[in-house]
């Protein structure tokens, strides 16, 4: 063991395993600046043996994973948020600093550090090496993007750099996997306690302010014969197209429309197929099970409840595939740049654009996609407004009510019928609610302090299948696990409400069930919107997922529960006035009737505060909107020709 420099990190005990007990896992922290390829390496090292949670008390996500070093030995890897320094000004920096100093509750102090830097940008990235090496923990300095460095004619003398830093250095490419075995060897070494800390040749800067660290980094780079690579020519060529004043926006619109079209219509056949598969498997399961309570719970409760979530998986996978391609290729940053000016009008920024677009398919992946927004306030604002975008679960409800109440007639010649116009106006309504909410939030509670918009433009590169695949699996597992478990619970609870109290061994009629009683109980509350208790039951059941209301109303009216069902349309038409129908549409446009979304918001914001605010706000807005719609339509239709739009 070497003598210590009087770095600000202090003198720490350096045994790799301090308490020596075998029970304590060997912990290795992965640290690096944003855009250093940290997550790609983390995925490579851990494969799918990873866990995502939030650090206690903060909204920062904690990725931990296990890497197998020998047949029966595993080490725990902690992926820390991307930071440029350990100043502990932002939440990300505070978390990184606390974990590295062993001050984060629940996370043991790391035994070793993997410091990952982008070697095409070494001068700037080495700045982080100064505070990290001052920690005096065993550290492997990983120079990522070796392939880029070589292809653009840059070079660095690895042994010289290692001597300067007093830490082993590995030149790797996390994208291609080149050199990753060297990282594994190091992890094995630290796990076996074979790594000793050496003193750096170059004294670490004492005062770690950025200009000093940058000068230090430049000197180290010089001594390690670092030659910065030539500018990425292909990136400049591509940028002259993608950021062309005229061509750029055109390509942007084409990309956006293609993504939108694919996730919206492209996923439709797969989703329909999946729906049929789930229904027929449910029917098949039902035929296997003996008649009774158990069968009803399993088939009508569990299977159809979980099925209603799984149906969205194709759309979510496609969406993440697109976002993955856009992000890994580098186009996402350009899209954010182009969208920034428009988004700024709503108090948001360019990076909010793609998540909000995704929300038209489903708010759940959209909210997960907000992780690309580093600015916390902008991210929360985007999360708060994403559920206003007309997601695909609203569509069957809209279609059913519109078909039941609005007679198809031309509005704009052959181009736009009245039913399409109604649907379109609901899209606009959701969008307006989102925009106004964003403005209100961003000019009040989420006012961006002084944090200005800064966006790094990474060089373009080909996305790799491994990286895309890992991300797809990762995100869909999160979706299925989190959203699936909530939906499962809610489905079972709703099933119970619809099936108690039991009469003479028979389930009750829906109006006599607990759900029916709740429907009756809330009737005074929803009567001003023009809804009766039956719609009330539908609203309660749609808390699980919006489209569930169709199935519930189908059960109540004893009809087949699909939006195409003319029987259900007629039944609705008898139950609701035109005002009530429009109120129902407005209610669905505004209300947060989606357990999966709330579960994801809770996860992504790290607590119950934001989901509760969001749910209350959206419910109040939905009630108010429905109330206004009901009364305005009522006043208008009593006198005017609005009756002409009635279907029957």
């Amino acid at each position, binding site marked *: 063991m070497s003598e210590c420099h009087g770095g600000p990190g202090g003198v720490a005990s350096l045994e790799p395993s301090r308490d020596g007990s075998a029970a304590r896992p060997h912990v290795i922290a992965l640290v690096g600046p944003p855009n250093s390829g940290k997550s790609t390496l983390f995925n490579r090292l851990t494969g799918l043996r990873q866990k995502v949670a939030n650090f206690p008390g903060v909204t920062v996500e904690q990725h931990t994973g296990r890497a197998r070093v020998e047949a029966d030995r595993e080490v725990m890897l902690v992926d820390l948020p991307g930071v440029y320094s350990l100043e502990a000004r932002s939440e990300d920096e505070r978390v990184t600093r606390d974990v590295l100093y062993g001050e984060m509750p629940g996370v043991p102090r790391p035994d070793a550090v993997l410091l990952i830097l982008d070697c095409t940008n070494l001068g700037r990235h080495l700045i982080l090496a100064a505070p990290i090496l001052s920690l005096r923990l065993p550290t492997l300095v990983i120079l990522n993007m070796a392939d880029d460095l070589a292809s653009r004619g840059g070079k660095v003398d690895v042994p010289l750099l290692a001597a300067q830093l007093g830490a082993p250095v590995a030149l790797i490419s996390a994208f291609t996997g080149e050199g990753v075995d060297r990282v594994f060897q190091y992890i094995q070494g630290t796990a076996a306690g074979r790594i000793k800390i050496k003193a750096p040749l170059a004294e670490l800067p004492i005062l770690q302010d*950025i200009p000093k660290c940058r000068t230090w980094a430049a000197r180290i780079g010089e001594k390690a014969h*670092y030659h910065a690579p030539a500018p990425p020519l292909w990136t400049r060529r591509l940028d002259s197209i993608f950021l062309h004043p005229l061509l750029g926006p055109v390509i942007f619109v084409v990309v956006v429309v293609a993504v939108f079209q694919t996730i919206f219509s492209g996923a439709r056949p797969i989703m329909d197929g999946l729906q049929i598969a789930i229904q027929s498997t449910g029917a098949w399961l039902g035929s296997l099970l003996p008649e009774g309570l158990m069968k009803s719970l399993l088939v009508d409760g569990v299977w159809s409840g979980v099925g209603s979530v799984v149906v969205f998986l194709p759309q979510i996978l496609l969406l993440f595939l697109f976002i993955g391609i856009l992000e890994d290729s580098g186009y996402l940053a350009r899209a954010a*740049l182009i969208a920034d000016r428009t988004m700024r009008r709503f108090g948001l920024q360019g990076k909010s654009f793609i998540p909000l677009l995704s929300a038209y398919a489903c708010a759940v992946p959209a909210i997960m996609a907000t992780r690309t927004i580093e600015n916390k306030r902008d991210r929360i604002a985007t999360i708060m407004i994403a559920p206003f975008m007309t997601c695909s679960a609203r569509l069957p409800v809209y279609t059913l009510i519109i078909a039941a109440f609005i007679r198809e007639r031309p509005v704009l010649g052959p181009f736009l019928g009245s039913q399409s116009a109604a649907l379109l106006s609901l899209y606009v309504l959701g969008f307006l609610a989102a925009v106004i909410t964003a403005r209100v939030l961003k000019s009040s509670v989420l006012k961006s302090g002084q944090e200005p918009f800064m966006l790094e433009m990474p060089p373009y590169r080909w996305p790799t299948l491994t990286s895309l695949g890992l991300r797809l699996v990762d995100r869909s597992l999160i979706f299925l696990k989190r959203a699936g478990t909530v939906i499962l619970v809610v489905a079972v609870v709703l099933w119970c409400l619809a099936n108690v109290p039991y009469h003479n061994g028979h389930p009750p009629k829906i109006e006599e069930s607990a759900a029916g009683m709740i429907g009756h109980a809330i009737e005074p509350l929803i009567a001003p919107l023009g809804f009766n208790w039956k719609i009330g039951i539908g609203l309660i059941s749609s808390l699980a997922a919006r489209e569930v209301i169709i199935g519930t109303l189908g059960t109540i009216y004893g009809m087949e529960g699909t939006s195409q069902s003319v029987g259900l349309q007629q039944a609705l038409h008898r139950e609701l006035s035109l005002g009530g129908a429009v109120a129902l549409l407005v209610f669905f446009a505004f209300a947060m009737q989606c357990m999966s979304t709330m579960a994801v918001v809770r996860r992504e914001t790290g607590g119950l505060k934001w989901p509760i605010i969001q749910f209350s706000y959206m419910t109040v807005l939905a009630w108010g909107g429905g109330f206004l719609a009901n009364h305005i339509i009522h006043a208008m239709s009593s006198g005017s020709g609005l009756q002409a739009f009635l279907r029957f």
Partner: protein
Amino acid sequence: MQLSFKKPAGRFARSLEDLHPGEEGVLDRLDLPKDVARRLMELGFLPGHRITRALAAPGGDPRVFRVDGSEIALRRETAARLRLRDQAAPASPGVSLSA
């Protein structure tokens, strides 16, 4: 942290906002609150560094700048707060940051 090393903010001091595409300038100081200035410095916007204006979003906002080996986009309002060194004055010695 006081970041103005030279004269106080002159009314006519050029800023990053004034750079034309392809044009280069040497950053003099960041007229921004300390924390924001720090964030920008972490991205390479350090006094004494050469900064080149690159492309921009349609409409010219935000704009992309090449600094310390990477490209960073800033809104115009931010770029206007990053003052450039007087071109006639020689670059101050001691801040050699080429890497």
